[in-house]
């Protein structure tokens, strides 16, 4: 087994077993003794433990996988899934936000508009992309591209991967609230099929700002939340270290999101998370996107808008109290 570059806390038992296995293999070859029985048994134990660890992931463990440093980002998925991506820059008003990108591409040969949060892969790129936290320009560029898509009848496909919109002075001065709000409203009115995918982190309004679509898909280890587990923990328990507790209380895992009707389909990931086999994760997502787009393409424009309105109109859990 290849040693993972990063080991998450709950993966430590696996690391220990891997070490023991390597020690056995080493001893066997060094001393020319037959330890194949022991090695086979250790391998079986490792596999069993892996199955055990990865089949019973709690919300906080999934958050950790969603934030795994090696987890593929939007550009990696775009390269695997689409053909001939042409990035289109800028909001035509102020600047080009590299945390929220977009452009034309082809899905199975069909022209689409892709819009995506991008965190960046190395340190330099991460800084340039503001760690995937968009400013108002990003949301306004996204809206511009959505309108271009509508004009030419291209379906819109959004990849959501952000901790949230950037909390900055300039962001507020250029009205980030309004930029997000306008996107929420306008996305409900777009006369083309729209699909979003929560590929890792769905951080609050910053995620929703490109996420009001006909279909919402999510990778099984992604999370989508109104507030970060750390933020919630520091408000409720005055301690960011209580994040695991907050993650459980917020029920931010993709499974619960599906129960509430917020996510339409969970996209399975390679064993242990998308980072273990990005190409395989992309392939599974590709198949899901193709299927959902085919379904949406059958609907007329009015029907599409009616269904989209009904989808968001129905979200929420409340009671109706008898009037005294």
């Amino acid at each position, binding site marked *: 087994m290849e040693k993972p570059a990063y080991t998450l806390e709950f993966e430590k038992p696996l690391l220990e077993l891997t070490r023991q296995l390597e020690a056995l293999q080493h001893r066997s070859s060094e001393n020319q003794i037959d330890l194949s029985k022991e090695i086979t048994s250790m391998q079986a134990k490792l596999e069993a433990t892996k199955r055990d660890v990865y089949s019973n992931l709690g919300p906080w463990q999934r958050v950790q996988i969603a934030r795994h440093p090696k987890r593929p980002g939007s550009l990696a998925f775009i390269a695997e899934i689409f053909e001939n991506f042409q990035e289109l820059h800028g909001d035509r008003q102020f600047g080009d936000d590299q945390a929220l990108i977009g452009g034309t591409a082809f899905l199975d040969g069909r022209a689409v508009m892709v819009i995506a949060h991008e965190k960046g892969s190395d340190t330099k790129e991460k800084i340039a992309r503001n760690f995937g936290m968009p400013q108002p320009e990003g949301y306004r560029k996204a809206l511009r591209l959505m309108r271009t898509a509508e004009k030419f009848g291209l379906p819109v496909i959004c990849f959501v991967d952000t901790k949230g919109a950037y909390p900055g002075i300039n962001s507020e001065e250029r009205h980030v609230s309004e930029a997000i709000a306008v996107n929420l409203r306008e996305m409900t009115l777009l006369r083309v099929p729209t699909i979003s995918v929560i590929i890792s982190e769905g951080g609050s309004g910053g995620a929703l700002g490109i996420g009001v679509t006909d279909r919402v898909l999510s990778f099984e280890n992604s999370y989508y*939340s109104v507030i970060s587990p750390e933020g919630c923990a520091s408000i409720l328990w005055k301690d960011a270290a209580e994040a695991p507790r907050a993650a459980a209380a917020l029920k931010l895992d993709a499974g619960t999101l599906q129960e509430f009707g917020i996510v339409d389909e969970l996209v399975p990931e390679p064993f242990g998370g998308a980072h273990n086999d990005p190409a395989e994760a992309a392939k599974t997502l590709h198949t899901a996107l193709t299927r959902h787009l085919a379904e949406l393409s059958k609907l007329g424009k009015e029907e599409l808008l009616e269904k989209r309105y009904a989808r968001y109109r129905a979200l929420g859990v409340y009671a109706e109290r008898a009037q005294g």
Partner: protein
Amino acid sequence: MSHFNAPKYPTKSVKKKDIPKGLYVKCPISGEIIFNKELEANLMVVPKSGYHFPIGARERIEALIDPGTWHEIASEVVSGDPLKFVDSQTYPDRIARYEKESGLSEAVVTGYGKIHGIPCSVAVMDFRFCGGTLGSATGERITRAIEYALEKRIPCIIFSTSGGARMQEGILSLMQMAKTSAALGRLAEARLPYISVLTNPTTGGVSASYATLGDVILAEPGALIGFAGQRVIKETTKQTLPPGFQSSEFLLQHGLIDQIVSRLDMREKLRDLLLALFVRKLPAGSRN
């Protein structure tokens, strides 16, 4: 232009202790002592300093709507407990406490009535109920108020005050931003006016949805209005916040809102705007 001569109203964050309860109260701006009765009679605006204390939803409606024309809708809609959320207390216990303290069953009161004879659908948020947070029931009530405007083809007015999304309802709270914005999309397509009034404070998810989608956006003086919290911005950017950051006056200067309007002038302002955008002609005797 008159607003450049307007007095400066420093923003003060609303704390529970600032909401007057006793016989008299101290103005946080001028320090003057004012009797609560006098304050209530003046819509919770301190006469000399012009400081705006928070006002209850029902009191605001009473001051705003033509007498005898108000009908509440969607008051049967109340919170559920989708997440079975528990922090220092259970979410249902928390809701029960706010209900008892505020005399309201949600953070917004919705209904319809007339302003100077002009019919409109109105939603008024109240900070006393769970910090004006946006839960499923809040979002549902607001959406019904917007849909009522759409159905009757009348304007919609929303008075916002909110600490943001309601954490105890998790992602469902976030989705209320999408739901209310979708309804406002339909209202916009029907070319019916929507006036948004921002009051102290209007932050987080509410600011990033219906509060900033008005055809006209008004704000009360000295209100704190913004997306991100000031502490978070300071910690993230390591920058000093400019004076008056996220105040109504700051937003007006940056071109983000249309006007700052004193609560005492709100009814007249709204009449003029509704006359222009909805009635579209000036009735005899309405010149000011």
